[in-house]
């Protein structure tokens, strides 16, 4: 009875503690969300929670004012900071103003003291770090994979040698055993003193049919493999040079929805699509410095290149000491080929995905995609020849249909106008109801070779 009672008591206690726990979790949520909404609407464009930005971080702001002995003045500061600075009753007001380079904070006369408290409560209690572990785990996994890959790379030549040695040992031991057995079983045989080679020849002769077939198969397979490997000359499929920074396209273009053209911004203006200059990286990475140590290590390389020192008070600053990032070019064409990005993207309206694949899902740095993978993508023109070869270009020029008479494209408007001067030729082109790039001169040698 006593035991039962105490068990019940214990259960009750447990239940109560769970209730308390839940209420602790839930209770401030209502307050938070109000503070959160206010923060997002009023403060977030200049103030971050845990990091100094245009203005100081909000976490601990109340404490800092209280430490300066002016805890009550923070409300006046938020409502009308210019008046507070002018009144001369606050030292901290002018100090903050000067620390942030004399840029004036907006006036928020419409906020009540309660609302300011809600915002500051929200700032003090929220923690952005809580979201990090998942990402950290993923990055860890990736790092391990990379390490494993690297080990594999270095190990190939070693395993090669070890295998070779084992193989040789086995060959000799087998033949040694055979010889001894033979010697033991038939001492009367005349050619016991024959060399290995002579014995081997005899053995081959004994099984001459099998030997012939094996030799034939071997010869043919060597020939086939040799010819096939000739086909891989100048095929760059799968080329993925290592880069100074392990840049994940999946995060930038996929998760964060950044347009390709934001970073590769000369794609519509120039022959080369362009690599982003480091100031473009800094447009976001001034604020984003990575959640995991791996990410931070990579992003610190950008900081070194841009000359950004995050430790300069209050919110980091440029030092003026820049250093270049040297990226390795991935898609290389021979010098005797002319390829122009702006032509294909502006006039041809070809999507990046046609040649570069779906970079939104690419976790590693850029790579010359295999043509099979490119053709799997929905909406792509289906091609068969290896990527970046002439056959590939020609095939696409032969398959790509263009609409030349709907006035949507200035380039083809002009072509259309010129084609109509020779109606016979124009009708001939239109016979199969479609006009391809090749019919408009896309197969002329001098289009790309000059």
């Amino acid at each position, binding site marked *: 009875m006593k035991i039962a009672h105490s068990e019940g008591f214990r259960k009750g206690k447990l239940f109560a503690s769970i209730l308390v726990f839940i209420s602790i979790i839930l209770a401030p949520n209502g307050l938070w969300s109000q503070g959160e909404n206010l923060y997002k609407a009023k403060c*977030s*464009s200049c103030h*971050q929670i845990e990091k100094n*930005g245009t203005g100081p971080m909000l976490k601990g702001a109340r404490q800092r004012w209280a430490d300066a002995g002016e805890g009550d003045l923070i409300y006046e500061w938020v409502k009308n900071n210019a008046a507070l600075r002018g009144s001369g009753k606050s030292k901290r007001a002018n100090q903050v103003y000067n620390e942030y*380079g*004399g*840029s004036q904070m*907006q006036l928020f006369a419409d906020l009540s003291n309660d609302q300011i408290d809600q915002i500051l409560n929200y700032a003090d209690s929220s923690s952005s770090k809580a979201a990090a572990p998942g990402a950290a785990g993923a990055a860890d996994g990736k790092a391990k994979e990379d390490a494993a890959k690297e080990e*594999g*790379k270095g190990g*190939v030549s070693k395993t*090669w040698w070890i*295998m*070779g040695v084992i*193989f040789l040992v*086995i060959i000799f031991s*087998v033949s040694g055993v055979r010889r001894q057995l033979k010697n033991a079983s038939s001492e009367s045989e005349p050619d016991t003193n024959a060399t290995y080679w002579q014995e081997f020849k005899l053995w081959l002769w004994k099984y001459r049919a099998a030997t012939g077939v094996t030799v034939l198969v071997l010869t043919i397979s060597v020939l086939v493999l040799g010819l096939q490997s000739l086909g*891989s*000359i100048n095929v*760059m499929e799968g*080329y*993925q*040079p*290592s880069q100074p920074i392990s840049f994940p396209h999946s995060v930038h273009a996929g*998760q964060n*929805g*950044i*347009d390709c*053209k*934001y970073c590769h*911004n000369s794609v519509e203006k120039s022959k*080369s699509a*362009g*690599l*982003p*200059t*480091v*100031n*473009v990286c*800094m*447009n*976001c990475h*001034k*604020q984003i410095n990575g959640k995991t140590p791996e990410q931070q290590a990579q992003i610190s390389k950008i900081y070194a290149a841009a000359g*950004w020192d995050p430790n*300069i008070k209050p*919110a980091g*600053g440029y030092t*003026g000491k*820049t250093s*270049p*990032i*040297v*990226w*390795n070019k991935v898609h*290389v064409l*021979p*010098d*005797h080929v002319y390829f122009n990005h702006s032509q294909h993207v502006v006039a041809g309206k070809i999507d990046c995905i046609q040649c570069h694949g779906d970079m939104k899902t690419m976790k590693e740095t850029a*790579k010359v995609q295999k043509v099979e993978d490119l053709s799997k993508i929905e909406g792509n023109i289906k091609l068969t020849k290896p990527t970046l070869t002439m056959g590939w270009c020609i095939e696409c020029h032969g398959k790509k249909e263009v609409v030349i008479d709907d006035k949507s494209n200035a380039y083809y408007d002009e072509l259309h106008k010129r084609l109509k001067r020779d109606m016979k030729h124009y009708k001939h082109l239109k016979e199969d109801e479609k006009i391809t790039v090749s019919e408009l001169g896309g197969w002329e040698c001098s289009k790309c070779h000059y």
Partner: protein
Amino acid sequence: MKKSFIKYTGVLLFGLFAFTSCSSDPDSPGLEYMPDMYRSPAIEAYVDYGEVRGRIDENKKVQLTALTPPEFTIPFYGTDSNLVKTMLPYQHLPNALMKNTHGLFNERLSSQDEYTLAAADKINGVAFSEKVIEKGKKIYTAMCQHCHGEKGDGNGPMVTSGAYNGVPNYTEAQRMALSDGQMFYSIYYGKGMMGAHRSLLNKEEIWTVIHYIRSIQYKDYAKTGKIAFTDTTKTK
């Protein structure tokens, strides 16, 4: 029994050996026929000329990529002096503090708060037309949308994914009241956390995208090209 065991292990080992000996190296571009065709003396962007046919020339190795364009290499708009004037109607230098916050080194700096002065610059450098709005939309989609959002409310995918915060809402009264010149200044030199975007957009493109931002802020702007601003915060 023992013999066949040895034989089979031999075959197995040989098989393993054959498989492991063929692994591709992603760092190698593969077999090349006449490598000099890929690395010719004609200079191409980003190509490394340091190694041609196995000979390594340290002086020609790629030393510099991904640097900010040098000053004065972003061209003025055209060569027509009248057009240049339309493109550069307001000469404002970056604020002296922006040297540290926005990395504007080796530049003429102003000791005044030029951003506030730009409030007087109310005329857009590019004349309004419906085509300009269309063009501006394209630029906005590629260059601004990931942070500022499709509707200009500061909720682009960068913000909703949780990677970045603190993007202002264009449709707030106080930002609707900004002059075109101030918008130009913010895009050209950067403002707050935003960096300078003049290496990405030329002056004509900046004016064009400002037209589009106006059309997000004001319903009738896309048709009329006129701003009808009423400050709701002050009348209340």
